[in-house]
């Protein structure tokens, strides 16, 4: 495609001036994207039409579409390539890269989160335990570009809000000294997703097969032996791939208990990560069923952002003219009306939610209830409000809006 030939030539020339030094590539790629911003030159439809009708596509990388839905290689230069990544489903995968460069939002918008990782134990080359924490969250709009730094300096997730969203990535082919390319499971795990161990992968598939075919008892029978004897990385992979298929809490608990006998530190770290992953996948599924774009945005925040201040900030960024708390109250009500919580929010619940979002004190909350309902005559109001408050804060879906 002519535009990407121009962009590719520009990047080639700029990088050659830097002796093809990978350290300079993020700057080179960023400059290329700023001089020739793709969103101003090509549209989603231009790229799609070209890719489907051109005489010959450039050599395609990542044929199994591990990163991109799908990824389309549009230019291949010396030790770098340009890709257009299509996204139709938001995936909140937190990762680092073994390549460097820059990306540009060409169509749609994204929520980018920057994360930090403080390792506490390197269990194996492919697996580390530690603390994954949010450092920054921002909304990226069409035309925004950001650098990609290889390795742990840039741990991020880019959650695409619109369907489709398109990003243009100008990247090196891969930097050996930045391997393995870790993915992260908040709040505790870093693991290498690529270069699977064949036997671990195949056994994982077999364990999944048992659960998918409804052979829960068989799975439990064999899993205890496997978890009690295999190495930490294998057990991690087995649990990562099968845990969410086990619906019964007691069975989940027993599996972790069985695995914890041989790998206590791993299981202590993994349990909260698995629970978050389960929550994440549930929200992704709910988001898929909902067409209202405001609710999709709210769900994206609940999915990606673990704390209240960042959530309120992002709501303000996206809807500058709206009060973020009122917006959240409206969305919580609408989600409950759609049956997402399994129970409908009543007016007292929404009032309590409002008080919690405003960080009202106990006294202020009582006054708010008294003001609305004249509850001074009602006994046990204080303990009732306490129970209501903790019940809401325990909500699996809304939890992040209460975290400071």
């Amino acid at each position, binding site marked *: 495609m002519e535009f990407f030939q121009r962009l590719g030539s520009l990047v080639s020339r700029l990088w050659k001036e830097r002796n093809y030094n990978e350290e300079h590539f993020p700057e080179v790629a960023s400059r290329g994207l700023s001089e020739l911003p793709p969103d101003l030159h090509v549209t989603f439809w231009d790229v799609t039409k070209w890719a489907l009708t051109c005489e010959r596509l450039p050599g395609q990388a990542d044929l199994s579409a591990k990163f991109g839905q799908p990824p389309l290689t549009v230019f291949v230069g010396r030790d770098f390539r340009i890709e257009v990544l299509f996204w139709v489903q938001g995936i909140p995968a937190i990762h680092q890269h073994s390549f460097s460069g820059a990306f540009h939002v060409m169509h749609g918008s994204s929520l980018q989160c920057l994360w930090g990782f403080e390792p506490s134990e390197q269990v194996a080359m492919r697996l580390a335990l530690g603390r994954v924490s949010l450092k920054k969250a921002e909304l990226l709009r069409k035309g925004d570009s950001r650098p990609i730094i290889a390795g742990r300096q840039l741990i991020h997730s880019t959650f695409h809000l619109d369907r489709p969203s398109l990003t243009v990535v100008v990247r090196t082919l891969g930097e050996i000294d930045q391997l393995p390319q870790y993915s992260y499971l908040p709040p505790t795990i870093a693991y290498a997703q690529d270069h699977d161990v064949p036997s671990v992968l195949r056994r994982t598939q077999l364990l999944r097969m048992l659960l998918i075919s*409804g*052979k*829960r*008892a*068989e799975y*439990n*029978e064999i899993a*205890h*032996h496997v978890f*009690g*004897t295999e190495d930490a990385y294998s057990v991690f992979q087995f649990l990562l791939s099968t845990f969410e298929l086990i*619906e*019964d*809490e*007691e*069975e989940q*608990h*027993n599996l972790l*208990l*069985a695995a*914890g*006998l041989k790998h206590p530190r791993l299981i202590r770290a993994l349990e909260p990560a698995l629970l978050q992953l*389960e*929550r994440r996948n*549930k929200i992704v599924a709910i988001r898929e069923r909902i067409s209202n774009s405001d609710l999709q945005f709210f769900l994206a925040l609940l999915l990606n952002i673990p704390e209240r201040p960042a959530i*309120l900030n992002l709501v303000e960024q996206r809807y500058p003219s709206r*009060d*973020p*708390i*009122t917006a959240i109250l409206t969305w919580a009500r609408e989600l409950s009306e759609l049956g997402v*919580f*399994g*129970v409908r929010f*009543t007016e*007292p*619940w929404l*009032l309590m939610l*409002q*008080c919690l*979002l*405003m*960080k*009202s004190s106990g006294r202020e909350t009582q*006054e*708010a*209830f008294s*003001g*609305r*309902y*004249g*509850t001074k005559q009602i006994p046990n*109001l204080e303990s009732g409000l306490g*129970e*209501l408050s903790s*019940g*809401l804060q*325990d*909500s*699996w*879906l809304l939890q992040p809006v209460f975290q400071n």
Partner: protein
Amino acid sequence: MTVTKAIAAVARSSEPDAKVLTLDLGLDSIVLLKRQQKFSVKNIASASTFRGWLESSPSEGERWLRSRARDGDVYAMEKLGRRLLTGNGLPKSIEEGLGWLKKSAELANPFAMEKLAEYELDENDTPGSSAEGERWLRNAVEHGHRFAMVSFGSRLVTGAGLAPDPDQGEQLLCAAAQQNSQIAMIKLGTYLLAGWGVIHNREEGLRWLRRAGATNASQLLELGFYLYQKSLTSTTKAARGLAREASILFQEARRQGNPIASLNLAYLVRRGEIANASCPSLDELLSMHLNQKDSFAFVNQALRLARGVQCNIDWKAADVLFEKLEDSSNVLEWWFARSREGDPEGHLVTGWLGRHQLAVDPDGFQVAQRMDLARNGGWLVPEWMNDLATAKQNS
């Protein structure tokens, strides 16, 4: 608008014009927000059963388990121990079974500890077994075994195998429930519903059951059925407790208008698995279902007549009921499974269906063979029941 500005606006936005005297905070359902829609009665009641590799190839299975156990696989030790202790798939050897279980428990396997506790508390009558059982149970709890916590709490509430301490028992059950143990919620709910070991509190009991996923009568029924099914594979002492828990749920389901609950209660009462005093009479429980020609009701009524439960023994009248059965496939499925578990009533019903040519005996037994098995189990089956019934054929 910022958050701080919004705080000042609470009172303003909370307009007093909607003042009412009563305020329902909806606390009954607030707990549902926590559960991620995970607890469903369906999950807990639909676990598949797996008889294990010993059944498909006993010698190979035993060799595998023994070899893994010798190599230090604590879970193989535990499974070998369980099977030897109960004679499930292997010749029963209590001593060797306990040996493997203890070895596994000493290597910190909490599942083995819990099994040892169950054995000491429910099956071993020797002096000191109760203290030994309690020690294993405490160990299992300390090693994070949530079900052991439930078992401990439940035993302290009901006094099953341990000196009752309802307060501590309730605390343990609450702690397990707080850790999301569905079975702890069910037990707490059940005990509170019936005032069994704890102060009767129907509302609180129902709240726990709702948290466990039983939000209506048919789900209560399903939970009760799950507990009853568990009782079928439990030790005699544990089975009694589970059957009573099931009956409490059936009674609540009946109270909430579920008709099947009456039939299930009738089954438990007829078999003497729960005390008659706590239930309505069999006539009351069965009458509606008999009028509706329900097959299970007919078989229950027939077995009641054959045993003389709350009535005179009348085998002829019982036999007539079998003659009138319209659907026998579910009946065969349930009672044949009981025969496989060695329940003589299962043999009697399977044979009875054969006598009326309502089903082909899945094991290929003659009617007389089944009747003999029922007689050996204590049923006073008349000799004429050995013959095929001809009346229906002639008519």
